[in-house]
């Protein structure tokens, strides 16, 4: 079974440019998370979805970040415009009902110049 798939793995952009990250969770997993991981730190939650509904987006900087999970499967995280401080790894994770385990993708590493 495929794990959580993210793309792109790496992205380098100039500040003020837009960027988007895509995540395909494990099949059947209803809960999807986007985390941001700064260098040397643990992942920090940005947004959590239950199916297509964003149930916790309190940590998402809504002035420049947006996310969607149409049809409750794949999800996209967008930053527009990107700032230097947005350089980080953006991790997607999914949690299947009853599994008790959070599965992470390999992350999308963003560098803003």
């Amino acid at each position, binding site marked *: 079974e495929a794990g959580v798939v993210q793309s792109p793995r790496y992205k380098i952009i100039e500040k003020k440019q837009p960027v988007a990250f895509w995540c395909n969770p494990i099949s059947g997993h209803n809960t999807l998370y986007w985390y941001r991981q700064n260098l040397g*730190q643990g992942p*920090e939650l940005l947004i959590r979805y239950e199916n297509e509904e964003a149930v916790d987006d309190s940590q998402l900087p809504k002035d420049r970040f947006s996310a969607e999970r149409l049809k409750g499967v794949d999800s996209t995280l967008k930053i527009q415009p990107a700032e230097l401080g947005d350089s980080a790894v953006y991790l997607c994770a999914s949690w299947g009902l009853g599994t008790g*385990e959070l599965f*992470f993708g*390999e*992350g999308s590493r963003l560098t803003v110049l």
Partner: protein
Amino acid sequence: GESVGLHLPTLSVQEGDNSIINCAYSNSASDYFIWYKQESGKGPQFIIDIRSNMDKRQGQRVTVLLNKTVKHLSLQIAATQPGDSAVYFCAEKISVDDMRFGAGTRLTVKP
């Protein structure tokens, strides 16, 4: 989690020795905890979990200890191997489906 910037706590052990990685959690109401291992360039991977009604849980070469009195978790790795070199995070379940991560500890295994 508490920010430690670029200066992750580090632990260096000799191959074959036992490792103990510690973590303090924040919420006394948290009822579920997980240890994750993150290798360079990869996402965190589940190692072992423990519920708050337990003090100890053992897996293959790993043991997690939970001290609710002082809100402390530890991960013990027996006979540490070079492949165990990674950053280790503890995570606590704040609410339904909401996991919050600590800052992590970098484990280096010397051959």
